[in-house]
């Protein structure tokens, strides 16, 4: 990763010196070595503090929404960031010429908590190679299976390489189909058990709205759920169900499965399980790819004359 990181810095520096972009968004050092944070390089020197390693967890696309107001923005973009940018472009929230995208292929980001748990001690660095991940700790260098180290969203990633990039560092990895088996697991539960499962999840929701803040699809100027007739302020079970039902429905067909909402949720609510349920039904009923790559019209913005009526197969575990 280091040579890509060097080329990234060199590109950022050139863009900033030539004034091609007003700010370059990437990652910079965080409080801990294995938790880099989003970093906004506003001048050529700051470009040298950009870093790109196996711990860069946050999605960068959504930051573009505020930054473009003052001028063109450059950023580094992995597959999920690329899809997030496409979502903003498709929703006319950002114009393509305002962006300079440095694309990189990503084989997965390490979840520092998981890595430390697996290694049994603090993990300084990591290398993701194919099916295994090498964790470098102060005392040793051992390799573990991907499932033990990577973020959830990376384990199910189907878009390693961004489709839109002004320049691509490293070679592209073709996109795949998203695995939605985890949705079947919930579907198989009897309906009362399923209800208790979701009621327990939603009871933990603080309504901190972090999921809305990080989501490229939740890019509205003002959210309808902020209006009293739709949702009161309380956190009773009715309000929780209304919030999570409406959020999931509003991103149905538009969610790009970047996994940020689930990662950002402080209460650890499996929001991906909600988004993926809509994605699975869109795929099974209307043949929409999972996730739907943002194009001109979203799946719920059109119809086919012979669309099936998906409400017939009632009964347990559908």
């Amino acid at each position, binding site marked *: 990763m280091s040579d890509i990181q060097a080329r990234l810095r060199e590109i950022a520096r050139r863009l900033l010196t030539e004034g091609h972009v007003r700010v370059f968004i990437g990652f910079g050092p965080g409080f801990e070595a294995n938790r880099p944070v989003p970093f906004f390089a506003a001048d050529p020197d700051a470009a040298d503090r950009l870093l790109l390693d196996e711990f860069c967890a946050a999605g960068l696309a959504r930051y573009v929404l505020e930054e473009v107001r003052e001028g063109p923005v450059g950023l580094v973009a992995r597959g999920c960031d690329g899809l997030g940018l496409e979502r903003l472009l498709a929703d006319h*929230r950002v114009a393509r010429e305002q962006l300079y995208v440095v694309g990189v292929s990503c084989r997965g980001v390490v979840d520092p908590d998981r890595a430390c748990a697996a290694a049994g001690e603090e993990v300084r660095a990591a290398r993701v190679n194919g099916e295994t991940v090498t964790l470098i700790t102060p005392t040793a260098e051992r390799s573990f299976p991907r499932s033990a180290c990577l973020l959830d969203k990376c384990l199910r990633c189907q878009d390693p390489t961004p489709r839109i990039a002004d320049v691509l560092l490293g070679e592209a990895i073709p996109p795949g189909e998203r695995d939605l088996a985890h949705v079947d697991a919930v579907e198989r539960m009897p309906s009362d058990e399923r209800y208790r499962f979701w009621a327990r999840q939603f009871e933990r929701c603080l309504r901190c709205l972090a999921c809305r803040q990080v989501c490229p699809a939740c890019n*509205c*100027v003002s959210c309808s759920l902020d209006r009293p007739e*739709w949702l009161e302020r309380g956190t009773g079970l009715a309000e929780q169900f209304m919030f999570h039902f409406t959020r999931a429905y*509003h991103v149905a067909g538009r969610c790009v499965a970047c996994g940020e909402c689930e990662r950002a949720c402080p209460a650890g609510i499996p929001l991906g399980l909600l988004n993926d349920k809509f994605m699975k039904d869109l795929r099974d009923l209307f043949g929409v790819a999972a996730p739907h790559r943002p194009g001109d019209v*979203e799946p719920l*913005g059109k119809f086919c004359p012979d669309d099936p009526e998906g409400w017939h197969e009632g009964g347990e575990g559908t």
Partner: protein
Amino acid sequence: MPRIGVVVCWCGHNIAGTVDVTQVTAAAAAMPGVVYAEDYKYVCSEPGQDLIRRAIADKRLDAVVVAACSPSMHEATFRQAAAAAGLNPYRVEIANVREQCSWVHRDREEATVKAVALVQAMVAKARREEPLEALRLPVTRRALVIGGGIAGMQAAMDIADAGYQVLLVEREPNLGGRMAQLSETFPTLDCASCILTPRTAEVARHPRIELLTYSEVREVAGYVGDFRVRIARKPAYVDWDRCIGCMLCQEKCPRKVPSPFERDMGFKKAIGVNFPQAVPNRPVIDREHCTYFEKGKCQVCVRVCPVEAVDFEQRETVREEAVGAIVVATGFDVLAPAEFGEYGYGRYPDVIDSLAFERLNSSSGPTGGVIRRPSDGRVPREVVFIQCVGSRDPDRGRGYCSKICCMYTAKHAMLYRHKVPDGQAYVFYMDVRAGGKGYEEFVQRTVEQAGALYLRGRVARVYPEGDRMLVRGVDTLSGQTVEVAADLVVLATAAVPRGDARELAQLLKVGTDAHGFYNEAHPKLRPVETMTRGIFLAGAVQAPRDISETVAQASGAASKVLALFSQEELVADPLVAVVDETRCAGCFLCRPVCPYQAISTRVAGNREVATVNPGLCQGCGACAVACRSGAMALKGFTDEQILAEVEALCLRTGSPG
């Protein structure tokens, strides 16, 4: 909090019979915002409406809820009554306590509880309403008539005579449509061209009718009062302004081509007109059959033309027109030959359809009016007419009756007798349908005087035997199978919609039935209107019909257009969508769901936001659901109002709404 008045109607016994109206009135009085609650025996009557008007004045009401019959019955009545008392008509709501409550439930207690809930919902909605003003839309007092047959011409004449501009678009190079192909017409046997050609001349000369022949409608946008229509003029390869109509080109043109106008029994030239009396009397070049276009040679027409009117470089031109109303009069077609293998239709030359028999009868037709067999030109001594070929045949997808065949076949049999006195006509029929004025008498004359033999039964097969056509049918009245060795077989084929009827219907956003005939707004009450306001129907485009009905319907459609043009402005329902620009993110998720393309872009400050054209919007509300941020609201059915209704409907009775 708006001051709301509730009036509960007894509807004589209809509501009061099952619903305890006094209890409903008492419950209404206790609802928040309700300052007046009353019940009355017949609220829709004059005194009933007076009661509303007085209540509005005395109690200074801001909204009125009437618990009575279905809104489709008297919503307009009560809204007009409120408007007369100075209250905005759109602040009147109806609680349907008759059709959906007292008439369908027996238990008095349950029905009353439901009636209270329905009133409660309407009161909740009324509390959240704001006054709405009806929309005023401009009217372009110019009509478009599509189709230059008898229907289109009649409609165009009526509208133009009333002083308005008319644009008449006809796909063929000449006016006349289907009727131009007919010889005589029933029941009076007066010749079709004698009544048609003067009319075509009149239309061509009319100062307020602009004739666009050899043209097609390609696109229709806009709405009633302001339609934007794109009309393409196909290349005729002859400059009609320079041409003087001498027809030398048609005379000298070496290329003979089977003429569809003559049902491929006669020939036309590669350049020319469909029939001698065509109006406008201007030729066109048939590109597929012109030697110049095929091999680049010939050009005889260019050499003989005295005014150099031939222009091979002519291209299709398209023009955009603004019109206020559209009359569709595109007529009908006859069944394609391929569908009846057992009659050898399209395979044996002496099995023809009735339209071809019309051409044989026509003095300007291929045989100059003498009935001759297409195979060898001999005058047929035995002619068999077969009815219901393709009609009344659900097994082959067309269960309807084509209505006019019984009459034109009787006419054919009579004309055949006039021209071939010793000839014998056989008519295989199932039921003779002659319901018009003087029609039945006409058919009886055919049987009695023309000596046509009517055989009740369908024909199973027609096949050649020697040089004649053997027809194997049945006479169900005598219970015998019947064989006739006919010289000529004439099939009364089904009237079917034009080939491109469905495409034009989609352009106009007018519905069609399963076969492709256009849907009228209401079969009995609004037969000449469509569900799309400002678009009207005339003639066989709506269903098979004869000339007299077509002309009557054309005048009917014209009167509807005149009614539209007579108003200063068009009053449109204000229940349309509106964008709250402070909330709109400009994501345009609303635009693809709008069936009327009513949503477009507007710049607000530094952002692009959505905006709704009130004229185009018909108020379906699909965009209000597609809009995630709640910026799109449908007046009269806003989210707040519907949510309030839902909440009110779910309340256990007794607790305050």
